[in-house]
């Protein structure tokens, strides 16, 4: 075994049983369909329906409304939902990282009050890390929380915050002590109700025309003492463990599967050797990535540090996603057109327009490779 080996994932019988239940549920879902949208839609009705089935926060302990399942079972449900572009974006961040964060570092009150609502599909989160002047260099964040009587006063601004305009809470990373020699010190995380006075949100339209990410301003925002998550000054360590969840899931390599499905449908009408080869190669990548992701789930279950593995997987997975339109477009000569009646043309347009973001969000590929280089002893 070496650093780069991914342990053999566990095959979950319960998970496989769930798979057929999830498929049945999806096939019978008559609500909103988001078709080939590259990134899943935001649909509280769907989220609540999933919550009712017990398919959100499956890994959370039962007493916090979770299913008490393992991560392997959660992965089965998640990949099945991603595979059909089910509209899971409302609860996805809360279920993937904020819930686990609160369970691990949050106060008992935070856990009791919020985690069950996440599991019910009724409570959505956004992640307040990036700032106008702090992207890859996250430790340079300038949003400040100053200790005041009974709480904290926050001033500053976050940017690129996905879904900030339609989520209930933000997990905010900010400075609680001036930057010292150790740049990562003096950072803390807070639980911020998006309705708190002084929090304002302005949406930013992306190149695909979506209203997805935002600028969020904090002007003299008062947060009570119990808004602190975990330990003051430990924000960096807490974020790092959260990012492992953010970087290791199938959402990091399946976001463009919609286009691949449309491609395959079109290819069945006009088969070619090149088309078959392209499908085979994509499937080989996909199945390797799936295995690696399931392997990380096994590591996390065994409470092993998987930060390096998550960085490797996110780099591989997002490069794979990004390559999908480049690969497909050369096989079937179709001009991409957003919203076209031809499903493949519309899906192709969608993934071309979203592809640049894959290797930026959640840590750029350069930053991830920096993490990998460091672990190899190169920095």
């Amino acid at each position, binding site marked *: 075994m*070496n650093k*780069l*080996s*991914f342990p*053999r994932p566990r095959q979950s*019988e319960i998970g*496989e*049983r769930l*798979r*057929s239940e999830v*498929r049945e549920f999806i096939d019978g879902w008559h609500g909103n369909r988001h078709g080939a949208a590259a990134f899943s839609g935001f649909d509280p009705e769907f989220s609540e329906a999933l919550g009712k089935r017990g398919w959100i926060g499956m890994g959370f302990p039962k007493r916090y409304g979770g299913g008490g399942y393992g991560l392997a079972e959660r992965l089965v449900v998640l*990949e099945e939902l991603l*595979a*059909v572009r089910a509209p899971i974006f409302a609860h996805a961040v809360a279920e993937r990282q904020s819930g686990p964060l609160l369970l691990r570092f949050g106060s008992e009150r935070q856990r009791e009050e919020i985690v069950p609502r996440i599991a019910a599909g009724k409570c959505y989160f956004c992640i307040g890390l990036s700032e106008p002047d702090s992207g890859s260099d996250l430790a340079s964040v300038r949003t400040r929380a100053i200790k005041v009587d009974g709480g904290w006063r926050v001033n500053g601004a976050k940017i690129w915050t996905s879904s900030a305009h339609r989520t209930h809470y933000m997990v905010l990373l900010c400075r609680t002590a001036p930057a010292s020699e150790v740049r990562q010190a003096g950072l803390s995380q807070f639980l911020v109700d998006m309705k708190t006075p002084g929090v304002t949100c302005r949406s930013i339209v992306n190149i695909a025309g979506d209203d997805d990410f935002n600028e969020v301003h904090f002007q003299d925002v008062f947060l009570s003492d119990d808004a602190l998550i975990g330990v003051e000054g430990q924000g960096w360590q807490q974020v790092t463990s959260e990012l492992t969840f953010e970087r290791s899931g199938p959402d990091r390599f399946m976001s463009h*599967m919609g286009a*691949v*499905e449309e491609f*395959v449908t079109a*290819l*069945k009408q006009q*088969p070619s*050797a090149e*088309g*078959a*080869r*392209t*499908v*085979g*190669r994509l*499937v*080989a*990548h*996909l*199945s*390797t*990535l799936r*295995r*690696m992701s399931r*392997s990380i789930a096994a590591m996390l279950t065994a409470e092993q540090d998987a930060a390096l*593995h998550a960085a*490797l997987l996110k*780099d*591989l997975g997002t490069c794979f996603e990004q390559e999908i339109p480049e690969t497909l477009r050369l096989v079937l000569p179709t001009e991409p057109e957003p919203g076209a009646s031809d499903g493949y043309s519309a899906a192709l347009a969608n993934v071309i327009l979203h592809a640049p973001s894959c290797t930026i969000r959640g840590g750029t590929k*350069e930053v*991830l*490779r*920096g993490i*990998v*280089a460091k672990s*190899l*002893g*190169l*920095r």
Partner: protein
Amino acid sequence: MSEETRDMLHEAALRIFADKPKNLWAVLQESGFDKTLLPESKGGAGVSWADASRLLILAGEHAADALLADAMVGHWLVDHAGVDGATLPTVASSAHSEQIRLGRTRDGWRVDGKLPRVPWGGACTHVAFVVGSGTAAQLIVLSRDAAGISVTSGRNLAGEPRDTLVLENVVPAAVVAAPLDARELLSLSAILRSALMAGAIERSLALAVEYANLRVQFGRPIGKFQAVQQNIAFLATQAAAARAAAEAGSEAIDEWLDGVGEPLSRNIAAASAKIRTGEAAGQACAIAHQVFGAIGFTEEHELHRFTKRLWSWRDECGNEAFWSRELGERILAGDPGQSLWRAVVPMAKAISGAAAGAAR
């Protein structure tokens, strides 16, 4: 096999490779690594294919010749055919049925045709191959010194013998119903090549990291330059993916032979192993050579021992294009109304159904 025995075997192999004996192959044989897949009663260690692949990853890491993989499969097949005295059996996994004629005369079987690029085809004692598909598949074992076999020697980029055998009216040592058909044998051999490749890729990475920390230019180790770091980190992602794909492939062999998995010819992990490691190999070689600059381009430096094997192995037993097309066609030929995802990730029930059919 217990975890402990498995670790011991691994340790023992590691020690041998690290020693770099001049007669590596003889030492491996003496320790029985070529027979490791056979049951203990037959002088083997009864390891699983996944364990055997782990040994092959080690072999690849130490630029050992592919012979170990081919001899492992050779022993497995020769034993199945009940042929004794094979001290160096090899396998002709790329045998094409149309190039082989198997006939039955009054005095028994005769084989004619051509076995192209057989690993150690000239030096082996026996060569095993399979013709035909499905249940009609037959396993043929030839004794290398049988009359009617002529050899044209050839080599791969790494100098490993790849000899073409022309067969004229050869009396085979055995012809029996095969435990797997020709396509499955090719798939199995491709998976073992993937394991060797995963090992060689990991070594290219290790060499690159080591050199980047030693070689000083512009007053600092080149590993301090971000351009170099980024390339090597990318190489690391390829190494990780290659190992994961090779391991998944080898586990697919065990699951199939244990009757719990799909047949190799229908297994996605089996086809994916060679596709993914083959792609990683090309990337790994390019980056490793870039990191080493001119010194890596010399005969004297050891890097080429790994990269030449990678450039060879990726084209043996079917390259990425071959397996991609094979896999893609199979998927596209499925139920036209079914999504790609559901073809790739079948329901568990469907899996066990297929397994029941495959258990032979």
